[in-house]
């Protein structure tokens, strides 16, 4: 039996937690990138998410966990499984798939089932990690150490939401819609801009230096290690509260209004910062809407934009090596100019 440190028991790191919640409410925001110091609970937070997410329904027998309500694209099996009437379905946990270091391409995209091929001579497709992550989260720790050919592959699938396998005489395509979550330490190397751009939100985490916070972190971690079951039990109610917030926010999401004024403001901000392409504006809007849904606000306004601008835009700024200010500072500067308090 393995335990997971409860999400609600993570001390501080509010921006990271918020970004993860936003993506959980609206997967359309795109992935979350968590970059920063070692030992700040990056992996802990992502793994805690798995225990937190409300369950979802999946069609019985579908290898890709397709949605009986037909959300997103269905795989090619599902029409057969559905037959004429309604497909049978069951509750499953939302997958949070860990991509282990050293994973090989065949296990990521899926490949010929070697066992069956060798023993029975049957040509069958064995789905990989991308299939398992469908409708959920794909987590890559040390994302900057990922091998280049895997990065290329992920970029493609993350963009299209579909995994196309053409190998060993197999020709398979299946849905692979997932929220890409990456974490890493910038000192190990930078991410390629193309991959950077795939992440909707980018969060910077720092080691807290204030003693009270540090003591609290160590105390909770210590308590967890001493008696994980009791600790999880203690935080159960708090985790449950966050789960309900996610469920409620998802229901509200469609009703949140995005007035033209807000769109204009977002566009101004992106112009000011000179972000490349439209992805910045789109993410900014979606994230702001998701944030409004979480907070129970009916309309997106400056308040949401201001809170979410840094994570939504800081990794899209064109590098200006001669400007010493970090990208966060640049976003904040633009905010201060455009959105005077």
């Amino acid at each position, binding site marked *: 039996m393995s335990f997971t440190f409860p999400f609600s028991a993570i001390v501080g790191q509010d921006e990271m937690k918020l970004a993860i919640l936003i993506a959980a409410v609206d997967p359309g925001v795109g992935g979350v990138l968590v970059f920063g110091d070692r030992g700040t609970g990056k992996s802990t937070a992502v793994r805690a998410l798995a225990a937190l997410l409300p369950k979802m329904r999946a069609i019985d027998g579908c290898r890709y966990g397709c949605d009986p309500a037909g959300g997103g694209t269905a795989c090619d099996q599902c029409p057969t499984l559905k037959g004429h009437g309604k497909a049978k379905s069951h509750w499953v946990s939302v997958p949070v798939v860990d991509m282990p270091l050293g994973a090989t391409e065949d296990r990521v995209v899926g490949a010929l089932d*070697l066992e069956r*091929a060798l023993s029975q*001579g049957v040509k069958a497709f064995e789905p990989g990690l991308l299939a398992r992550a469908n409708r959920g989260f794909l987590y890559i720790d040390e994302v900057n150490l990922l091998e280049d050919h895997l990065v290329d592959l992920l970029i493609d699938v993350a963009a299209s939401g579909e995994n196309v396998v053409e190998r060993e005489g197999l020709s398979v395509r299946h849905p692979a819609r997932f929220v890409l979550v990456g974490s890493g330490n910038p000192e190990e190397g930078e991410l390629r801009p193309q991959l950077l751009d795939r992440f909707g939100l980018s969060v910077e985490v720092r080691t807290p230096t204030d003693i009270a916070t540090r003591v609290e972190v*160590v105390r909770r971690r210590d308590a967890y290690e001493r008696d994980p079951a009791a600790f999880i039990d203690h935080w159960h109610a708090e985790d449950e509260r966050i789960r309900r917030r996610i469920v409620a926010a998802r229901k509200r999401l469609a009703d949140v209004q995005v007035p033209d004024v807000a769109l204009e403001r977002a566009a101004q901000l992106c112009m000011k910062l000179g972000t490349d392409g439209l992805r910045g504006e789109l993410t900014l809007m979606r994230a702001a809407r998701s944030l409004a849904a979480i907070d129970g606000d009916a309309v997106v306004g400056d308040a949401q934009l201001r809170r979410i601008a840094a994570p939504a835009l800081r990794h899209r700024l064109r590098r200006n090596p001669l400007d010493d200010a970090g990208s966060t500072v640049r976003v904040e500067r633009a905010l201060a100019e455009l959105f005077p308090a």
Partner: protein
Amino acid sequence: MDLPAEAAVWADATLAAAIFAVDPVGVGGVGVRASAGPVRDQWLALLQQMVVGKPWRRLPLNIRDERLIGGLDLGATLQAGRPVAQRGLMAETDGGVLVAAMAERVTPEVAARLAAVLDRGEAVVERDGITQRHAARLGLVALDEGIGDDEKLPAALQERLAMLLDLQSVTPAEAFEDQAQIPDLAREVAQARALLPQVTMPEPVLQALCVAGVALGASSLRLALLAVRVARIHAALGGRDSADADDAAVAVRLVLLPRATQMPVVESEEPPSPPPDEPPPSEPPPDEPPKDLDDAEPQLPEGALDDLVLQAALASLPPGLLASLQARQARADRSRSSGRSGAARKSGQRGRPAGVRRGEPRGGERLNVIDTLRAAAPWQRLRGRVLDAVSPRRIEVRADDFHVTRYRQKRETTTIFVVDASGSSAMNRLAEAKGAVELLLADCYVRRDKVAVLGFRGRGAELLLPPTRSLVRAKRSLSGLPGGGGTPLAAAIDAAGALADAVARRGDTPLVVLLTDGRANVALDGSGGRAQAEADVQAAAMRFRQGHVATLLIDTSPRPQAQAAGLAQALQARYLPLPQAGAASMSAAVQAATARR
């Protein structure tokens, strides 16, 4: 206990071994800096006797993923005619100790895999058509044979090892002296293991450990947590069911002090004032914190324990260490971790794997057995293989099943900037060089090249930025560089030559960019005088030429000088007068030089 410094080091090493042996998983591991030899062997033997009955495995430096993490067992697979998985080394070590030799040379990739297992206690395999997870709760002993500050354990690994030992000063005689105690120690370890779950951690002790981490500049929260565990184990070893200031002081000494990057501000009666330029004196440091600690504890006012713990730990420092701390901080500000992304690849496997293609292995290409088998597998029936179990099963592989692994052969370029930081215009030149470095790095994204910076001023040259492709590191290293002083050009040329050589040995292509006006006035031995300095430069240039390194000399003087042009000739460098070398023009010139080759 009044022990000479070296004996105290060995006593601590013994204590660390015992602490690790009590709970290898909780402690994560021990980093042992020592050259191979009797002292290190003795320490390992000591540890081994305390963890008798647990798995004990060695991790070879060049291990491949299928052995480290697990994967397809090819021999068994071919024999059985179906995929057979093998557990990796980490899973085999479950519940025991993994000893990594020459851990300072471990690649970032292997370090990350080890770190993942230390964090999660299980090895997850998603390889070669195999999906498995195995328990792999282990403690790591990282043997570090590095010399100097450049060679050290990868930061990702170092952070997960609770204790770092330096046995370089221990003589074999000391290490073999107290062998008689080992059975006692082993017994204590066994008792402590039983007691450990009951040991409580009082709030003030926990807080003292957190404060100490910040005060010493070892601020990672992981370290604070490891210190808590070490303190608890130390209490268990002492037979106490609650950790106290004593235990905390030991934890600070073993866990936090070796990574200290700053001197804590402690109001002590006798402030440490180490002689700055002397070798460590052999003055005996007290090995134990003051005895009256325990008695004083109950009446302590809020926060006093924090100081006590720190002081006790500091008192046990060998005095020489204090002097080196300041120097270490200066370096730490610039390069906080080894962060060696893209270090040397495994030999025999040049470049990055760039996929697999069908084809026969020719011209040094390597057969990819897994994919070859995979290609052959579906056709076995058609090829008339008998599927019943009577005859030994064979897989029929034909030539058109062959797959080879492709590697990207492109060599990376490491551009080494050698920046003259002497004299009045130093600040400008440094700023320009910095700008050019950052522009290049931004561009290196696409090409994955690296950049290094050497600065020279005053008496010698200094490596300001080791080869890196991390913009974050470059920014940190290059911010706040001092300028002014003489021009030790000869030393700079020698340093550049040495670094270029190191880069070339790593399999990369060096490109040296020297920014100077060519007017040397400091000789190799650090003395002034133009004549000697010039002679040294000529000699250094001759040495440099032997390396056949592509070089670009950028003349930064306001008016192009014959001197710099002459130097360029001596170095067989391209000469480029750039009186107003802006960052952009400089990076353009360097890129042109790169493209030319």
